[in-house]
């Protein structure tokens, strides 16, 4: 009886446990022993072209498009993680050299021409890499989905980013003509020519994206841009106050505490107010404390802690 239990239970369990222990032990050396791929491997050209794959995916083109989409997200994510720059400027990602983002999104949208998420992500990220490619992808989205007003919004957004307000107004106008489009499109079509370069227009565009997009990537980017605009407003107000203090006292303030009463009287756009954390420090829109550069007598971001890209 005892022998039988030993043979049928204990021995097999011991063998299985022993083998698994050996497998776990082997995993590390196997990983370490694997030869490293060349540095540029992740940036080597895609071996497949989405338009050629189409029709050969056994009816599962959407699944392949999703695969390219996830690869695109990972590609940019890996680039950012691998970057030595602690505070990447989201307005200009050329330093990361993400040359495969466009072909990856191109493949995803070749396989699934109605993949709105891929077009919207491209419209937000590609302008920071290659503006012409961003326009090409968004135009392709509009051509493939002429009744999706959001795609006109993204194309108009790119033209606005590159400063072509005439073209942006034209695109917003076309999008506004689509039944069911947001009133925002009409507003942009009207204000783009006269106020295209203003911060108010930028705020309206990003606020619209944040409130109406279902796409998480769009929401994250729009939220980040809105916080950046808040920072620009606060920076201008604080610097003006510091300048006024300097003129009045013949020296720069020693701390933000010295100009706090003056700051409290400043009216920020949208009725916002300056924010103070639990340690009574003046904080930026991402809750990182502001720094005072006494030499230049200006406010700066704490680049170690903030999540705001410093300049635009």
């Amino acid at each position, binding site marked *: 009886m005892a022998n039988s239990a030993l043979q049928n239970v204990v021995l097999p369990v011991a063998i299985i446990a022993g083998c698994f222990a050996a497998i776990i032990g082997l995993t590390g050396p196997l990983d370490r022993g694997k030869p490293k791929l060349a540095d540029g491997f992740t940036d080597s050209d895609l071996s497949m072209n989405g338009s050629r794959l189409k029709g050969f995916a056994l009816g*599962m083109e959407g699944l392949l498009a*999703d695969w390219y989409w996830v690869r695109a997200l990972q590609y940019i994510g890996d680039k950012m993680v691998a970057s030595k720059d602690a505070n990447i400027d989201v307005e200009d990602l050329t330093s990361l050299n993400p040359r495969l983002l466009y072909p990856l999104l191109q493949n995803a949208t070749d396989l699934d021409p109605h993949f709105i998420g891929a077009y919207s992500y491209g419209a937000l990220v590609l302008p920071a890499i290659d503006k012409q490619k961003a326009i090409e992808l968004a135009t392709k989205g509009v051509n493939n989905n002429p009744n999706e007003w959001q795609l006109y919004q993204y194309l108009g957004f790119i033209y606005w980013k590159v400063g072509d307000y005439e073209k942006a107004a034209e695109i917003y106008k076309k999008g506004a003509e689509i039944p069911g489009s947001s009133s925002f499109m009409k507003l942009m079509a009207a204000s783009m020519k006269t106020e295209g370069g203003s911060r108010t227009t930028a705020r309206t565009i990003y606020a619209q994206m944040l409130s109406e997009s279902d796409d998480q990537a769009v929401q994250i980017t729009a939220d980040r841009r809105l916080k950046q605009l808040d920072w620009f407003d606060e920076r201008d107000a604080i610097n003006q106050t510091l300048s006024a203090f300097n003129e009045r006292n013949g020296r720069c303030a020693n701390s933000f505490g010295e100009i706090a009463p003056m700051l409290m009287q400043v009216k920020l756009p949208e009725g916002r107010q300056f924010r103070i954390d639990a340690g009574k420090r003046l904080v930026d829109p991402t809750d990182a404390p502001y720094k005072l550069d006494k030499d230049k007598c200006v406010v700066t971001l704490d680049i170690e802690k903030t999540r705001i890209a410093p300049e635009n």
Partner: protein
Amino acid sequence: MQSGSTNYLNGILAIAKNAFREAVRDRILYNLIVFVLLITVGAIFLGELTAGQEARVIVNLGLSATLIFGTFISIFVGVSLVWKEIEKKTVYSIFSKPIGRGEFIVGKYLGLCATLLANLVVMGTGVTLALLYVGGKQLIGGVWAAVLLIFLELTIITAVAIMFSSFSTPALSALLTFFVFIIGHFSSSLLEVATTVGTKTAVGFFTAIYYVLPNLSHFSFITETANGMLPTGSMIGSAALYAILFDVVLTTITVVIFSRRNFK
């Protein structure tokens, strides 16, 4: 006293019921269904990596897994249904009863189709529940339309599998059926390639393939479903008619081959 046609239908029904029972007892079937459901659950977690595209990934991955594993079930169960009866010699006892070879083949085919339908309902329910979990209920209608189209496609694959198994070994039949599945999805693309680069012979050859082999891309609606589209009634109706016509042709060929087969 029953008429000849009633007897014929009763015979088919008896064989179909038996084939259904036999197929649902097959353990490999359950393994495949569980695997599809696991993939669907996996799609929920994978969806979290896709920046707000969870519902789309669930539809694409869930329905693609349903198509692939449904095809495996059609092929592997289809090629063995008739072969097993011959190999175990149970076919003799069946034919000693008042059941003809035609009734036998049609009954086996319908039994497997019923099994596939039951499997697809389970898989479709899995995808539906996953969609409800991530808040993608607007895609559910499209999912069931796509499942119906997948079922129509699988009825053709099943008919092809049974046809090959009526005169060939299970391994070869499975291989040939898989080729038909692949070519069936490529045929319209091959026709396009032939017309752009090919000679007159190539165009003729690919045009013949296009019409003789089932064009399975008529049943592909997974990508569209993931984008919130719904097939029109006329599209489903045409696809159903197309599938039924091919099913009738293939089953008739199978009956003709099987009727001429000598079991001695």
